[in-house]
């Protein structure tokens, strides 16, 4: 009963944020310097054309009616039409997010692996040389701008690995397997860049929760009853230390989205970041606003999922 109530409250909060983001989008567009019609519609349009377009976009309605219409359209998934190629924004973004997902997933999994290794090493030997080295490199990599590290990766590895796009347009072999390996090869550099710039935060959290788990008395008990160290670390320490790290994933998703946008721009990965990047240079507002809404929606729903997973993993959080 408590769990259901909790889920409902969280869901309500999530809906409120998405509603807030949508309303913000609406207001921002209307409060833009100059008339919305000027921003929205081709500059230097003739007065007749402007009037026509205003009527077509419903800009002559009272503001509250415009707002209600906007909410209704957005709820139905209609995000407007791109200024640059007149395609529906929802189509552009649907294609883009399908490309972003593998990159983001590969990056997060890789980052967690890196954090697991460096967090475990620096917790086990904490205060020693290994700790300083692993923690230091995590901090330094965390401090690098993602776009800059991406450029360096291209400098360093472009002779071995593809450094732009998602697949080779001149690939002769058309089999499914050849296509998959080609995409995987293109994925390496952007995914590694994403992982390197994000794993630092996970390392720090995993390390400190590992250290506190290792100093618990049940660790002594486990070792005293003759369990091998490997089992003790994995079953008794790591399992308890993982929770704060999983929690952190939910909190860092918003930041990670920023990294994905920058990395996709550097590597011309045709995902949502690349869509944002090219929309900026074309001043394509509908695409930008649609991307913002879509990213907010995905971050909020993912953090909801992480929350639920955390509560399933640790019965203690259910009572709190």
């Amino acid at each position, binding site marked *: 009963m408590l769990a259901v109530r909790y889920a409902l409250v969280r869901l309500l909060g999530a809906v409120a944020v998405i509603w807030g983001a949508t309303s913000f989008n609406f207001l921002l567009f209307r409060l833009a310097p100059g008339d919305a019609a000027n921003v929205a519609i081709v500059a230097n349009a003739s007065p007749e054309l402007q009037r026509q377009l205003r009527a077509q976009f419903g800009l002559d309605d009272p503001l509250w009616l415009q707002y209600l219409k906007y909410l209704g359209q957005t709820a139905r998934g209609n995000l407007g039409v791109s200024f640059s190629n007149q395609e529906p924004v929802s189509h552009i973004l649907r294609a883009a997010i399908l490309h972003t997902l593998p990159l983001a997933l590969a990056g997060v999994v890789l980052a967690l692996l890196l954090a697991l290794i460096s967090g475990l090493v620096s917790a086990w030997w904490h205060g020693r040389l290994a700790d300083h080295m692993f923690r230091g490199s995590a*901090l330094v990599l965390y401090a690098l701008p993602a776009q800059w590290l991406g450029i360096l990766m291209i400098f360093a590895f472009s002779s071995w690995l593809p450094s732009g796009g998602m697949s080779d347009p001149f690939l002769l072999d058309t089999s499914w397997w050849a296509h998959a390996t080609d995409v995987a090869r293109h994925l390496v550099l952007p995914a590694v860049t994403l992982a390197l710039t994000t794993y630092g935060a996970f390392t720090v959290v995993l390390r400190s929760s590992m250290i506190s788990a290792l100093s618990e008395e049940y660790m002594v008990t486990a070792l005293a009853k003759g369990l091998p160290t490997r089992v003790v670390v994995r079953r008794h320490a790591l399992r308890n230390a993982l929770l704060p790290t999983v929690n952190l994933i939910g909190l860092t*998703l*918003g930041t990670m989205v920023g990294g994905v946008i920058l990395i996709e*721009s550097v590597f011309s990965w045709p995902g949502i970041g690349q869509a944002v990047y090219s929309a900026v240079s074309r001043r394509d*507002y509908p695409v*930008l606003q649609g991307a913002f809404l879509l990213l907010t929606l995905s971050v909020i729903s993912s953090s909801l999922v992480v929350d639920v997973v955390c509560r399933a993993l640790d019965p203690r959080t259910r009572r709190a």
Partner: protein
Amino acid sequence: MTGQVRHPGARGRLGRLVRVAGRRPSATVGAAVLFGFGLLALLASPLAGASADAQVGPVFAPPSGAHLLGLDDQGADVLKQLVVGTRVSILVATAATLVASVIGGAVGLLAGYLGGWVERALMALTDYFILVPALPLMIVVAQVWGPDLWHSVLIIGMLLWTPMARVTRAEVKVVRTRGYVLRAVAMGASRRRIIWKHVLPQVRGLLAANAVLIIAAAVFAEAALAFLGVGDPETVSWGAMIQHASERGAISQDAWWAVIPPGVCIALVVVACNLVSLAFDVTARHRHGRGAMPPGRSVEVEYVHG
């Protein structure tokens, strides 16, 4: 920091500074790096001269004795650009941090001190603001407002205040139950006076520690906005230098000298900020670890420093 009891051996501020520096070497290095960049930003004009973006040689000429970091895509001196860029990046970062600190500090103070429905509302706002992906929001706003240095400052500042609000609220909730605050309440001091005179001075150190971290985030944000092309195209900043290098073919020309320096500067500032704030964090924990101070003593300290 106020509220710190003076040790008998300390000889004035300088002596105390030296002692603190010796105890936390990594934080001292971080503070020195930040100080150096601040100085560089202040002295940028006399150091780089007025014509930092003038063409002085062939495009993408490699580093030489006359131009230590080589030339960029316009044939301008990379080192001079870097110095000028320092001024813009540091200015945007500090100004945005100021905006974020004022908003976050105010939200945290009000929520922590007033409690009740004000606290619940402000913290719900904060919790959800944390989730909204900042960079896409910054891009949308920057695009609609148009490219301008002060727009960047405002946009970055208005999106980085959430951690400040949370930390401040938590600390204020602790401070408001301390003896001297309760006494001030009993003596009939107004709410505003208590917040300004008794609570704010106690959380100042914590605000500073968080502000340092916001500087790092703001440097990142400025670089990201400039890279994506929503920054002010007229100004040279570290982020703009990275963007120019990648847009105008530094990679295909193998001109690493045009790319590496601005990124190194950003990384240095971010690492330095983290080191400094880490030390603040450790010190704060020690302070709390010492346990609840007897109320009489807190009043005395407050009296001496207030």
